[in-house]
């Protein structure tokens, strides 16, 4: 039986659902490591923004979403894609600029979307997805659907005008949207203390008359609990919420980052708070998995990623004579 100390996730989700969540967290971790390794090998053009250390936030926030529910994501969006059910081979194929990638090689790491799974896409513009998420929620309300939109964004976006305009409109129109801020402490090199007037980003919810809560973003159960409650509220027609997941990116902002704005000690301290290790410990403690089972999940994730990379690498490149395809719809081609 569960008691009051049993974590929300264990009380709420069946063991097989929790095991799947851990599998997804490992897939994200291995995906990011595979992406980093591919970059080092020169397989990836451009840059990328890795979410290693933030896996609990991505997976926890998507627990109660269906394929009809929408997400909008960010430049650090690989984890959100995986959490929302993206195909890993198509993701790697996109990184490698292949015709078989999610964006047929036209978008790259910062633009992966999967409308069939409700993923409206990552975004290269900080704050770009916030008003779009509100628009998706407006559609759901107008079209009489009970879809909810979860809008991921980082701490950096909370000082963009788009953040304030989007939260205000979501509130005045009581739209079914959940704003999930992944506060990983730095907008590129600028710390939240140096950039943001309030102590907690969730405090800004008060300005828009919506619930705001700050949770440990490395605690899968805490994230799932906060977002599930907000999703339920949104689905009932009670309007938006703001959730702040306190987390940390282990890697630099992008591949050009020399980590001069933070210390090795700080990074090590956060690595000791690994969200995947924490999730595994929770599942062991409640008899859902043992260490051997966890090791198997990790190994399976690594093998899945290795296979996805191999398949993606072997995929065809786009034809250069089609460099300007898809600017307009077929029926509306412009000169």
């Amino acid at each position, binding site marked *: 039986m569960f008691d009051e100390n049993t974590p929300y996730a264990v009380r709420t989700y069946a063991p097989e659902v929790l095991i799947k969540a851990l599998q997804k967290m490992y897939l994200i971790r291995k995906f990011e490591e595979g992406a980093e390794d591919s970059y080092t090998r020169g397989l990836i053009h451009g840059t990328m923004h890795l979410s290693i250390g933030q896996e609990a936030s991505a997976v926890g926030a998507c627990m109660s979403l269906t394929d009809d529910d929408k997400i909008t994501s960010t430049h650090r969006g690989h984890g959100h894609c995986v959490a929302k059910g993206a195909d890993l081979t198509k993701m790697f194929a996109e990184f490698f600029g292949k015709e078989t990638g*999610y964006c047929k090689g036209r*978008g790259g790491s910062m633009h992966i979307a999967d409308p069939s799974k409700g993923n*409206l896409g990552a975004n290269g513009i900080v704050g770009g997805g916030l008003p779009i998420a509100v*628009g998706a929620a*407006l559609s759901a309300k107008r079209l009489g659907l009970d879809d909810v939109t979860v809008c991921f964004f980082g701490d950096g976006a909370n000082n963009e005008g788009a953040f304030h305009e989007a939260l205000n409109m979501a509130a005045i129109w009581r739209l079914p949207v959940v704003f999930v801020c992944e506060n990983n402490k730095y907008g590129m090199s600028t710390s939240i203390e140096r950039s943001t007037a309030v102590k907690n980003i969730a405090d800004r919810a008060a300005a828009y008359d919506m619930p705001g809560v700050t949770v440990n973003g490395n605690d899968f159960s805490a994230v799932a609990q906060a977002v599930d409650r907000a999703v339920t509220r949104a689905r009932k027609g009670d309007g938006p919420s703001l959730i702040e997941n306190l987390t940390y990116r282990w890697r630099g902002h992008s591949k050009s980052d020399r980590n001069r704005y933070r210390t090795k000690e700080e990074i090590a301290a956060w690595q000791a708070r690994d969200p995947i290790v924490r999730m595994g410990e929770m599942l062991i403690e409640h008899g859902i998995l043992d260490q051997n089972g966890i090791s198997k999940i990790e190994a399976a994730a690594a093998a899945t990623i290795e296979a996805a990379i191999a398949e993606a690498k072997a995929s065809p490149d786009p034809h250069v004579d089609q460099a300007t395809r898809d600017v307009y719809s077929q029926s*509306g081609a412009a*000169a």
Partner: protein
Amino acid sequence: MNAPGVPETRELSYAQAIREAMDIALAEDERVVLMGEDIGVYGGAFQVTGDLVEKYGTERVIDTPISELGGAGVAVGAALTGLRPIFEFQFSDFATLAMEQIVNQAAKLRFMLGGAVSVPVVMRFPAGSGTGAAAQHSQSLEAWLGHVPGLKVVQPSTPEDAKGLLLAALDDPDPVMIFEHKLLYKSKGRVPAGRYATPIGKAAIRREGRDMTIVATSIMVLKALEVAKTLEAEGIDAEVIDLRSIRPIDRNTVLASVRRTGRLICVYEGVKTLGIGAEISAMVAESDAFDFLESPIVRLGGAEAPIPYNPELEKAVVPQIPDILDAARRMANGQV
């Protein structure tokens, strides 16, 4: 009485024609919503939406807060997920606050996502000078947006086209930006009843002529037609082309006309440098139509200055009828 099959036409103002298009769209398609600042009970800053809110309610004629960036982004997100929003900027100048969503999102989402999505959003921009509203409420920024692949940009000059291009924009799966000159809102013309679409990307020859081609946009079409009338009395036969769409541009109509007339004047209200006239001129210079030119090309565009307040100064910085007339006479006399 109209002959069978010939649509009934009525005399409507440009603003009434746009309102009629929105009324038709709202009536026939539940997915259509209007969004913008003060478009509800106020009726819009230029009374274009008028009383549509009374007919369709505040859920479909949505007053937004003064949040151009967010509002435009909501329209983009809504278009991405099944609605057909028509977003009104109160003044086209305020689009500068929303450039992120227009240029980075609406224009590029389809391409960036490999064709997986469309953004069927329509945005309306009351534009242009002549109202004494000075530099931040009088600009003609259509060439800015015309520079962005992924957008379509139109400038209706008649009530008939204002209605037809708006309905065409709603039928279009891609984002369409409609620049409406504020001084045209009260202009009148015959407008067919019911639903019809004016094709996007097709120019209209408003007056045929043999001696020179005047390519004009928006309100400059009306001025060019006045000029052509005066020139006719002087024995100069000017062809007037209403460009209607600046992205895509109807290259064939322009080049064919220049091949016939051998002379080209471009008239537009936006700033002359790096503007629509530069594009039209280059299009001719890069084509075989260049061989038919009997005179250097002339561009008449906005001055290299913000729009001033004083009415005489305001008129002085955009092409007026005497400016066009003067340029045409000089060209006809070989004085260019």
